[in-house]
């Protein structure tokens, strides 16, 4: 997965998780807060209403006393009863008792005076002093008051029973209303959250994209340039002016590219210089080796020697001179190949692309190899090059070089059999050239490796020390310079086949 996607999903996941956790905490704390608040509201409401009820009871008691005090003086029980009746049933008043000075019921608010004569403690099962503390039961509140004239003359007493269930009902009702309001508030929050969540989600996506781009874009740029470096292209540009680690990476990459470019230039120059310096003495060595060999043959003809030991010495000298010549030639080829490869990779090679028929360079290359194949009596070179191959943009010398390399390779690794060169048009878009041999073949795992520098298939005894390991690498560079491609494959009956294709129009079409 690309780093930009990794960063995107990482940031998105992190932000969404953070939001989810925050929302969960928020919801939980809000729910707990609302529940606690509801409990507090209910408690406060109950306390407030209880206090107000208590005060209401006291106020009511005072009002009743005020109303009955004259009838009490006049012993007008009927009037007292009428007054009490007017209070009972209103505003939660359940009953009212009026007592004599001994706390016995005089009037109880009922028409039949059913409680007359009963002592207050018999009515409520607790004594007067306790009753004066305004005790409450689940459903009732009792308020008791002495009727005092000028705070000293006791005229009697009043007991008021107020319905407390209505208070509790009121608390319940108000509490339910508050709960309903809180539920609605919570639902509103949920709805708001459902609106906010997509917004947060979209915002997270936006932030994730930004963060991913912010971090991945320069990394991708560095990666692309490193890939170019890997491909040998040191002309890179990294316009990254950040001061963080990514900026450091970009600058280091840029510096690395400069260093590599300098090294490559130095290497090219070195190779060029060394090659030149080597090629000159090698030419002398080769020339002198051939000259000595020829002179030796002229000065000491072999047929003149009768002494076997002398003949062996002369044969050994000739053999040694052949080795010097052979290795000098191989060294010269190696230097040429190194020089070519270096020029190709450094881009300093001069290509000579012209639109020309490919058949001719193929034929020329094949002819140039007749000498080699003539020395291999068990190997036969055959060709099948159609005359009507189209003209394509090619560098003729380089194409010849590719064919010579491939044929040379085939000759090296074929002890017996044939080497066949053919060409044809593929799909009307490509010219395909094949070099097929009956040699030792190429193992499957090395099909790609052999196009790398200094990679060779296990050599047979005959070809030992005779290859540079650069020929196929140069072939690959030349074919790719023609926008083509090259590959090898194992033939069914043994041997191998090297194939390269070059687009007719200079551009590889997908097929």
């Amino acid at each position, binding site marked *: 997965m690309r780093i930009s996607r990794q960063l995107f999903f990482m940031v998105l996941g992190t932000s969404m998780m953070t939001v989810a956790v925050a929302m969960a905490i928020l919801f939980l704390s809000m729910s707990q807060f609302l529940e606690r608040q509801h409990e507090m509201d209910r408690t406060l409401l109950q306390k407030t209403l209880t206090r107000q009820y208590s005060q209401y009871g006291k106020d009511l008691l005072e009002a009743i006393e005020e109303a009955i005090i004259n009838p009490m003086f006049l*012993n007008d*029980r009927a009037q007292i*009863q009428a007054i009490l009746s007017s209070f009972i049933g209103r505003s939660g008043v359940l009953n009212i008792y009026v007592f004599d000075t001994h706390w016995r019921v005089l009037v109880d608010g009922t028409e039949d005076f059913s409680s007359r004569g009963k002592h207050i403690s018999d009515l409520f099962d607790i004594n007067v002093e306790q009753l004066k503390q305004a005790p409450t039961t689940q459903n009732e509140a009792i308020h008791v008051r002495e009727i005092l004239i000028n705070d000293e003359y006791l005229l009697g007493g009043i007991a008021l029973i107020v319905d407390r269930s209505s208070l509790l009902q009121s608390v319940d009702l108000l509490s339910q209303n508050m709960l309903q309001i809180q539920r609605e508030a919570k639902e509103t929050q949920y709805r708001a959250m459902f609106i906010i969540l997509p917004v947060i989600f979209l915002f997270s996506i936006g932030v994730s994209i930004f963060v991913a781009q912010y971090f991945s874009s320069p990394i991708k740029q560095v990666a692309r340039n490193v890939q170019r470096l890997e491909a040998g292209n040191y002309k890179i540009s990294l316009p990254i002016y950040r001061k963080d680690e990514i900026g450091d990476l970009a600058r280091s990459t840029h510096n690395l590219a400069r260093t590599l470019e300098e090294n490559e230039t130095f290497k090219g120059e070195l190779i060029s210089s060394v090659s030149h310096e080597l090629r000159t003495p090698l030419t002398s060595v080769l020339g002198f080796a051939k000259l000595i060999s020829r002179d030796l043959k002229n000065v000491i003809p072999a047929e003149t020697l009768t002494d076997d030991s002398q003949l062996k010495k002369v044969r050994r000298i000739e053999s040694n001179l052949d080795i010097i010549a052979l290795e000098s030639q191989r060294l010269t080829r190696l230097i040429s190949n190194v020089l070519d490869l270096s020029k190709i990779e450094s881009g300093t090679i001069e290509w000579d692309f012209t639109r020309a028929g490919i058949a001719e360079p193929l034929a020329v290359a094949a002819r140039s190899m007749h000498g080699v194949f003539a020395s291999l009596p068990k190997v036969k070179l055959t060709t099948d090059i159609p005359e009507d191959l189209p003209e394509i943009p090619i560098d003729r010398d380089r194409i010849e070089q590719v064919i010579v390399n491939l044929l040379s390779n085939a000759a090296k690794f074929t002890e017996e059999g044939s080497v066949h060169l053919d060409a044809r048009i593929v799909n009307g878009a490509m010219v395909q050239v094949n070099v097929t041999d009956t040699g030792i073949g190429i193992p499957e795992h090395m099909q790609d490796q052999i196009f790398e520098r200094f990679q060779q298939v296990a050599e047979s005894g005959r070809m030992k020390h005779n290859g540079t390991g650069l020929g196929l690498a140069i072939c690959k560079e030349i074919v790719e310079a023609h926008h083509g491609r090259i590959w090898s494959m194992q033939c069914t009956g043994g041997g191998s086949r090297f194939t390269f294709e070059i687009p007719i129009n200079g551009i590889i079409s997908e097929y």
Partner: protein
Amino acid sequence: MRSSILILFISLSMLLAMPRDSHATDTILKVGRVSFNPRKHYPRVKAFADYLVDHLGHLGYEKSQVVFTKDLDQLAALMKAGKVDVISETVYAAAHLVDKAGAQILLREWRGGQSSYKSVFLKRKGTSISNIRELEGKMVAFEDPGSTSSFYLPALEIAKAGLTLVEKKYPAQRLELQPGEVGFVFAYQEVNIALWIQEGLVDAGAMSDLDMANPRHMPDTVLPHLDVIHSSPTYPRSLFLVRGSLDPKTQNSIRDILLRAHEDPDGLLIMDNYWNVSKYDVLPEPERRIVDSIRLE
């Protein structure tokens, strides 16, 4: 109160403004009533008066008039002056009107299905009083000064027993009584009489036997604690009186109308609204004599 005075004023003004021509006066039937609440009572009395006028058309009566007074003396004066033609009253008030205004008792008036009643003297159980004479030096509770069954008739009974009634402001004033005296206080509500007796605030009290049987006036929880020590003779529950100077034909016609009124659904409804009247009948002779005896007292 203001509305009561206003209606009274209007009524009196109409009376004074009426022409003195006897023929014109005789076309209006004037029904009197003592009331402290004319607003409440007017529709009921007016309906009763209209009912009578509707049936007196053959005698030239065309409309009715309601005359409210604040007390019995004022009513007697108006009746004597010919400004009140008919009235319903209890026995003592009726006797007063007969004496003071020359009214005539026309019919006995049943109220609440009762044709007659009596006053009873009550005491708390467990006390030593056993008859009316033993009320000497005791405190008795009556309802109010205008009550027949709970003041006039019991007072008459005490007088018959040779005792003198002395009004006191508070029940506790019994200690101030002299030999031969019976102290009394007004309780203004029948139920107060019952409760005071039970509490011992007073030694005895008087009310009608009808009130004693009514739980609103005599709570069921109190009655078992009380005993009757004396009962008065039976008196008519109420009487219907006419002005003595009223044309005899009119008197007779009114008698005939009222005697049949309870057979007429409309009449029955109007009578019930009027004074909770259920029926009119001829006053039996024994009760007439009792009424006369009141007048003699």
